[in-house]
């Protein structure tokens, strides 16, 4: 049989109806009655428990993983709204999916990495292909997590990790992770994919630096207190709009921080890795990003560039097709930064960009994705965290 996958979506306001509608559409597209595994991405306007319950009911209680996003992406739609759900159902006799979860990851990134590695250890096999992770985008600290995760797994070469950080449509209050019937916050939902198959992926951010080099002069973990000897916010505020204090979300989407890409991954990537400033502290003038930094690190203020973004999507397509060759992907997962959606592009523009990418890779391929608060994808065999980035993963 191979692998049958299908994707359905719904923008119905009733969570029970929406979940059911999306799941049934997915099952119909896949041509199956009961899937082996289910991916779900939904926005936060819904009552999440009712939504997941209805999907579980429609998919016969198949194992399920996913998270909340700022919007959803399928072949049919790109919907950045408070009410959208996308469901991918997979039935396969060549791929195996095992899911796991960890909770309470806030301030315990390393511990979470260890616990999650321990949880998925039993599912890992020689034919394990990749790991998909959906973590809480408000509390996740990637670097210590990954370090302990990979250390605990003790693999010769790291298991490729793809995923995105759960979002809550700029509310910055609560994101959701899904694991079977369980809907939870401040955790990570994880899927190990094994079997006969492979992944091809493309990663691109499309940001450009403005101004000259700056240097972190005081930091702790993922919090930057000072840049060039002055509070971080003071160092950047000349680029901000007048209302930056009250409109931090908007401000942090327009501008973010770029760091020189580390030497070990520079070969396969762009000049800068981008970091989104999740939060600020008006008292001490600090900003928080989603990975750790060290004092003395150079940084640049960067802004999104529409042309670069557009060109970057073509690069992604080339990267994937360069890997898959003539082999048609079985399904695709896309993790797109919220800063690359409607805040940059007009609706039609965004649709056309996404459509062009899908057409390049395959307009008939089951395609599911979501707008995230951070993206995860490996570069040159190293699992990396990204912001303002698109990570497109094709399973073939």
């Amino acid at each position, binding site marked *: 049989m191979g692998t049958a996958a299908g994707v359905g979506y719904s*923008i119905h*306001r*009733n*969570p*029970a*109806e929406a979940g059911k509608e999306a799941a049934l559409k997915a099952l119909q597209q896949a041509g199956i009655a009961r899937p082996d595994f289910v991916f779900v991405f939904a926005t*936060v*306007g819904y*009552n999440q428990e*009712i939504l997941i319950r209805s999907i579980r009911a429609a998919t016969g209680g198949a194992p399920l993983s996913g998270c909340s996003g700022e919007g959803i992406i399928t072949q049919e739609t790109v919907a950045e*709204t*408070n*009410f959208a759900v996308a469901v991918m159902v997979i039935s396969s006799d060549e791929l195996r999916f095992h899911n796991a979860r960890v909770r309470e990851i806030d301030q315990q990134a390393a511990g979470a990495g260890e616990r999650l590695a321990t949880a998925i250890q039993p599912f890992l096999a020689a034919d394990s292909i990749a790991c998909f992770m959906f973590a809480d985008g408000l509390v996740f600290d990637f670097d210590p997590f990954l370090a302990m995760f990979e250390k605990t797994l003790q693999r010769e070469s790291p298991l490729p990790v793809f995923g995105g950080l759960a979002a809550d*449509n700029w*509310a910055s209050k609560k994101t959701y992770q899904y694991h079977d019937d369980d809907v939870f916050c401040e955790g990570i939902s994880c899927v190990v994919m094994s079997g006969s198959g492979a992944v091809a992926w493309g990663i691109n951010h499309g940001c450009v630096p*403005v*101004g*000259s080099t700056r240097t972190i002069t005081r930091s702790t973990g993922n919090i930057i207190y000072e840049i060039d000897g002055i509070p971080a916010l003071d160092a950047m505020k*000349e*680029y*901000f*709009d007048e209302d930056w204090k009250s409109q931090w979300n*908007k401000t942090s989407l*327009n*501008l973010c921080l770029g760091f020189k890409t580390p030497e070990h991954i520079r070969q396969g990537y762009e000049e800068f890795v981008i970091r989104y400033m999740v939060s600020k502290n008006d008292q001490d003038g600090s900003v928080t990003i989603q990975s750790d930094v060290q004092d003395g690190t150079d940084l640049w203020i960067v*802004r999104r560039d529409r042309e670069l973004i557009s060109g970057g999507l073509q690069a992604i397509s080339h990267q994937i097709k360069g890997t898959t060759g003539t082999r048609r992907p079985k399904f695709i997962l896309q993790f797109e930064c919220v800063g690359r959606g*409607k*805040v*940059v592009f*007009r*609706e039609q523009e965004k649709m056309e960009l996404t459509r062009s990418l899908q057409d390049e890779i395959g307009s008939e391929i089951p395609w599911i994705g979501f707008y995230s608060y951070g993206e995860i994808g490996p570069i040159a065999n190293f699992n990396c965290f990204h912001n303002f980035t698109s990570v497109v993963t094709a399973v073939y």
Partner: protein
Amino acid sequence: MKSETSTDIVSPEAAETAALRLEKEGLAQQVKRLIKAEGKLYAYQEELDAQLKEYKDLYALNRRFNATFDIRKVFEYSIAYIINNLEYERVIFFEQREQSDCYAVCTFDGYYDQHEKGAVAELVITQDDPLLSALQEGAECIVCSAETDSKVLGESRSRLHMNEYLIYPLCSHKPPHTLLAVGNSAANAEFYHRIGSSDGALLGIGNLVGLLVSAVENHTFYANMKRAIEQERCAEAKYRSIFENALEGIYQSTPAGRFINCNPATAFILGYDSPQQLIESVTDIESQLYVEPQRRRELFGLMRNGVDVKSFEVEFYRKDGSKMWALLSTRPTFDDNREILHVDGIIQDIGERKRAEKAVQDLNEELEQRVIARTKEFVSANLELRQVTGQLERAYGELKATQSRMLQQEKMASIGQLAAGVAHEINNPMGFIISNLNSLKKYTDKIISFTDFQSAAINTLLATAGTHQVADDVMEHKKALKLDYVLKDLDSLIQESLEGAERVKKIVQELKSFSRIDASDCKLADINEGLESTIKIVWNELKYNATVNKEYGDIPQTVCNLGQLNQVFMNILVNAAQSLENQGEISIRTSSDHDNIYVMISDTGSGIPADKLNRIFEPFYTSKEVGKGTGLGLSIAYDIVKKHNGEIQVESEVGKGTTFTLLLPIITG
């Protein structure tokens, strides 16, 4: 100067570096401005895109509104637009109930909890609800935001299941027929279009309401127009049907004598194949149709005087030249100069009626003759009927009397049997009681005689000497026993007992005679003689307070038990005497006819009350004091008369008197 010169001397590299720095600084500032401008541009663009999208969506929605005449569809499209485009969580459309001042929920969406859904479906708001007072006062809409602390608006949050809401009237007149409520629950509001009162916040919903008001008013106008057209169509169809199918001819004609229009019945009545043929053929009504053209001039004369003519009889020529009678009803229409423009008319063919009237007249005459003959028969039959009815009434009266007598006889027979038994049982002991009392009386006489003798002897002894003590003792003892009184009273006691026993004996004899049928003593006798002898026997009862009037008729002798009849007469006469409280009269009359002898005994006594009259022949029934009557007298009389196959009747009036009438059949042997 030197120093100035030295400072002025700048190396070309340094100058270039400074220039580059300056340029860089300038560029940096430009970049900053560009970044800020770009941010603003994004914001404006986003806003413009949103507005453009909204107007496009609104335009599409309006097209959908215009494509339907179904207001429910309009509401349905609006709900989808409000939820999906305007992004409010909940929507309710209220409609005014017919013949009511209440708004009921007509359709709604955005409620996904069954309990809330059920509650909202049942929601009713009255026109005078305080919630709507702002609308009545002319407000464009009601705004209740999350921050609103109005008590009235706050109380409706739970009714609408919306923490923040807007209510719009959907028409320009008051009170509105339709209301729209949109809003959000407290739990989900942050994900929806928040409710606020600013122009910006209300712009989207305001635009929609503008369209909805037009749609609702168009719908109302369309519905009213449709209703009016339908009514007109129905009326037209109805009147057309009446016009086409009427049996009466309906037409319009001109004073000049042409038909303008007419129905098929008009053509048919006048012998034409179709209205069209009639209209085309008849160009001068007066000369072509009227047998007497003068009649048309008379008709128009009446109409010109403003009279609506009814039942105007005329004779017409039909198409084939035959004549027919018609009845016209006409109404003229005048122009401004009071000239007749045209005439609306109804024409009825009364030929049949005319023929029928003649037939009815002939029939009436024949009928009158028949009625006279039958009346005679009826009078005769009626007389016979009356006779038969009289006979029947009499027969019925006799039957009723016979039934009454039979009932009485049956009762008397039963009582007679009872009396015979009782008499037999009492008679025997009474025999030896009376015998013993007689013997006791004889013995008592002897004892008294002896004690008298003894007393005399003792007195004699007392007169002599030597025996005083014994004699004294005897006398003393006699005195102590009150023997003189006892002996004296003993006799009266026995006498009273004998009288009592005799009375019992008499009752028993009467009972026996009441029950006995004794035909052996019947012989030819004279009733007048019997009456006379009875009067003599009871004379002592009559003579003190009664004047006896006797009026004996010449009556034949009859076979009877005169002794028993005498007892009847005696019982009646004694009762009559006892009814006379002071002085009165007792009248005795006899008479006879061919079959019967009649004996009437009347008194002027106290009379018998009506409620007691039907009981006087019952045995033991008496109105006298205890001991004065046995209650058997009249029942014995009744029994004796019945045994003679006679009748006894009584008439009485309280205070005036009583009359007994005896009817005895004449039996000659």
